[in-house]
């Protein structure tokens, strides 16, 4: 099966103290990848590179159906949900309609897709709710719905559960686990090694700006266990 995205020899330098380098990263369709690593390791930077928000100084990024020079069109294959997502002013429908309108989807199909997607994220009947009146967990789910409604090939989630309370965590994780069924490849970043084990079919570990590409579960767990013992856990 053709990879969703391939990164090769990527190098990004931000300021004087941070650089990210990825020799090779190939993501297969309909899988969930957990991106782990300590704070400041480069997880968010890598997600932003994959979302085409940040241009690397060197390297190539290719999507499944060949290289297109139209950046906006390429961006439409991939969607990033930030750790603290921004919802546009207006209603939930206004937010979910934004990307659909850009893609020229007609009003009837927009309504259908919005209704179906809100059901997937457990927000049935939220169409007319004002974005400003939503709780933190609801904002997170609307942001996810806003990305999912676009049916992206690649969905990038930057620490999606960082601002979610423990009651909503299980439901959110169950939701993420089911996403490949809708034809989406998911990459989510997390600090939590147990979450990466629970959800990630493959774990990508990043340290000091270097990606340990597609590290198998064993060694990653070994690193985690070794650290846990160091801190007496």
């Amino acid at each position, binding site marked *: 099966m053709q990879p969703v995205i391939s990164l090769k020899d990527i190098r990004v330098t931000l300021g004087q103290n941070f650089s990210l380098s990825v020799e090779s990263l190939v993501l297969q369709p309909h899988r969930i990848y957990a991106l782990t690593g300590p704070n400041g390791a480069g997880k968010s930077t890598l997600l932003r590179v994959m979302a085409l*928000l940040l241009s690397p100084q060197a390297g190539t990024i290719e999507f499944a159906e060949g290289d297109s020079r139209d950046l906006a069109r390429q*961006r439409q294959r991939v969607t990033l949900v*930030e750790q603290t997502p*921004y919802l546009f002013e207006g209603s939930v429908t206004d937010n979910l309609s934004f*990307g659909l309108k*850009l893609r020229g989807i007609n009003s009837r199909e927009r309504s259908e897709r919005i209704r179906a997607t809100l059901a997937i994220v457990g927000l049935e009947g939220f169409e007319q709710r004002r974005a400003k009146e939503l709780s933190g967990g609801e904002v997170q789910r609307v942001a996810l719905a*806003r990305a999912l409604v676009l049916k992206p090939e690649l969905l990038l989630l930057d620490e999606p559960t960082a601002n979610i309370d423990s009651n909503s965590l299980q439901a959110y994780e169950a939701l993420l686990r089911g996403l490949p069924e809708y034809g989406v490849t998911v990459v989510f970043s997390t600090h939590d090694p147990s979450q990466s084990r629970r959800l990630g079919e493959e774990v990508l570990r990043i340290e000091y700006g270097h990606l340990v590409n597609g590290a198998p579960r064993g060694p990653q767990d070994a690193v985690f266990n070794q650290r846990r013992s160091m801190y007496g856990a």
Partner: protein
Amino acid sequence: MGYWGDSLLTAFELILGFDREVRMAVWTSLYTSSCSIAIAALLGVPIGLWLGLNRFRGRQLLIALLNTLMALPTVVVGLLLFGLLSRQGPLGPLGLLFTPLAMIAGQTVLAAPIVANLVLAAVTGADQRIINTALTLGASRLQAAIQLLREIRFGVMAAVIAGFGRVIAEVGVAMMLGGNIRNSTRTMTTAIALETSKGEFAFGLALGIILLSVALIVNLFLNALQQR
């Protein structure tokens, strides 16, 4: 009733009686100010947006220039445009001097830097995630910038209203480029200056009351926008 009392009474009679001179001055003021603010918005909003979204060499210099232009004395704008539009000036053959068009041009020069500067402030103060959110949802840079404008629309409207407040209250440009011609380029402010110097205090007072009312309405609207 005394000087003030009599003048106020006459002023209200002129206003409520829809005095033709008063009406013409009010119309000329509103017409020239509205046209100039519309053009200033078309120029100032994109400039403010562009300066707010891009980082490039010389940006700070441009912002400093905009700040300076904001404080331009109206008579200096009048003087410079007079030099351009007078018969000996490069644009003299167009015959624009002492016409409403000349006043609109001058007032546009006054208002555009205000609009640009306040839009720049609104863009700088906006949530930094707006542009990236729009981009990740598939927008082009232009579409993302338009979405940003939607999100900061109240700031943009406040910028336009502030520009309108500046041009409707100015005298220098209207006097020097319009010439204060009766029923043509005489605005509320130039009429107040002229009529008061002629001793027609009540007439000036009538226009002053209307001008103050317009300023009050504009400011109430501005405050209402800033509360949102």
